[in-house]
């Protein structure tokens, strides 16, 4: 696979776009016409060629621009990276997992050479080459967790397992769907999911926690989550809510197709070998309504899901202001035909 990395922005002039190939591989999250929270986890096994699940970590056409956007967000607010002191083993676990996965899955882009503890990492797209001693922080320019979080698309949380729960004890969070790392760091599982509506009643969080705590090394899992964002903005943090909150007022029937984006998170979880912690990776994919509706099956499906979404979820996800306009815009694709079960585009 050779990849042309696009030069684009996720802020200000918002030049982010998906190519035809990127649209086709978009991780569309709705297999049915209705949506409610569930423990929708499955093994993170190798997906079909070209799919976002083909490799352990998906590197796509947005890679270089997204890494630049991460760096920018962190520079403007250093609080997007936080790590509690007892997480150093987990940090090295993360560096090892990401370097090994990327160099195995994309050997033309990334290489890792090991001579005992002396490692040399090369990241060609970002023009990085670095020799360091594995386990010795002083030989890297920064924490190992920060070092590789800057070089992989998505957000990362390191979870510590103790007291029969999982604690979010480290994070590199620059493309979050409205949650604050600096506020949540150190929280136990049920605390950081506290604000999510309906899930207590459904028992979703208890079951998900049990599932995750019994995860084994070498058997990662994944799920999709979703929300919606106005403009292709990665940094929809509560910290910067004053910068993007008002964008919800700018949606008009004329610009729905371009402004309103479906935001899908490919969430993957890995057991880590030294720390016995977990890595929680949250990879964000954005697609606007015009791009989505190049596949009418998806437009039909999303029309139905969004139209019938539980009002608590619409409120929690911040979709109320532009819901009616978007549903109206999508309705022109929906002839009401039965499109069966499945997330495939055609």
């Amino acid at each position: 696979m050779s990849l042309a990395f696009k030069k684009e922005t996720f802020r200000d002039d918002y030049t982010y776009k998906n190519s035809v190939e990127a649209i086709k591989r978009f991780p569309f999250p709705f297999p049915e016409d209705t949506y409610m929270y569930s423990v929708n986890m499955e093994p993170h096994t190798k997906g079909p060629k070209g799919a976002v699940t083909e490799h352990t970590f998906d590197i796509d056409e947005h890679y270089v621009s997204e890494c630049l956007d991460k760096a920018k967000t962190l520079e403007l607010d250093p609080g997007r990276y936080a790590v509690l002191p007892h997480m150093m083993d987990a940090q090295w676990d993360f560096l090892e997992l990401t370097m090994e996965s990327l160099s195995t899955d994309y050997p033309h882009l990334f290489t890792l050479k090991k001579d005992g503890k002396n490692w040399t990492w090369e990241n060609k797209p970002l023009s990085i080459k670095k020799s360091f001693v594995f386990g010795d922080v002083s030989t890297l320019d920064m924490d190992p967790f920060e070092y590789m979080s800057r070089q992989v698309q998505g957000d990362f949380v390191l979870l510590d397992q103790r007291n029969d729960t999982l604690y979010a004890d480290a994070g590199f969070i620059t493309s979050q769907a409205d949650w604050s790392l600096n506020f949540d760091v150190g929280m136990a599982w049920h605390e950081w999911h506290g604000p999510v509506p309906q899930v207590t009643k459904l028992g979703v969080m208890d079951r998900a926690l049990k599932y995750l705590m019994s995860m084994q090394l070498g058997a990662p899992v994944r799920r999709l989550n979703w929300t919606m964002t106005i403009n292709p903005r990665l940094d929809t943090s509560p910290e910067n809510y004053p910068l993007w909150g008002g964008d919800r007022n700018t949606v008009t029937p004329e610009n729905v197709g371009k402004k309103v984006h479906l935001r899908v998170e490919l969430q993957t979880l890995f057991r880590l070998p030294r720390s016995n912690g977990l890595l929680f990776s949250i990879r964000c994919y954005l697609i606007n309504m015009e791009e989505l509706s190049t596949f009418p099956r998806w437009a039909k499906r999303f029309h139905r899901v969004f139209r019938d979404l539980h009002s608590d979820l619409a409120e929690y996800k911040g979709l109320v202001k532009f819901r009616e306009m978007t549903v109206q815009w999508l309705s022109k694709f929906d002839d009401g035909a039965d499109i069966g079960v499945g997330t495939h585009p055609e």
Partner: protein
Amino acid sequence: MERGYWIRSKPVYSALVWQQQANAHLVLVEGSAGGLAAMKLFQQMLPQQSITVIYETEAGGADYTAALKKVVPDDLQVFNSHDAAMKALEAHLPEALMGLRIYVAGSEKFMWDIAQIVLHYGVDDADIAKELTGTLARSVYCVHCKAITHNAHTNIQACSGCGKKLFVRDHFSRRLGAYMGLMVDAEDPGQIPEIEEIYP
């Protein structure tokens, strides 16, 4: 508030009860209501183990010093300032042993100030018994400028750091000892809902 909905990061406090499995007890109480909570504890029983009571009195409120002197057998320390009470706590901890039980009654600010201090000595907040007394006032963390504003009594509180009008959420961080505050008029500048006292 919506019925049946509870943000599970919001701590639940309950009345203090002596823990039987203990090597020593440390009781910290704030203000008139906290003083009374300590008295209630001694109404339950007088434990075998050593007991230290740190009492931060409240100017103008009822003072339970005299009553506590009669029931606290070993070590009653009374202070009229918060800083002095916290210093006394800091002084007590280096000598403390495993098996020390900690009990706190007071405002949320008082109990989470204590939680942060004892954390340095490896005591998790889950091991501190906490009773909320005196006030429901909240500490509010501004998610935008990261300042913490204390003593919020209303649904909307001006940030002491950046001045933004913050909606005080129920989402609570034990590490920060504060509720999240989010700019209330970010989407529609100037549109501030009615300000009401809901944390008297």
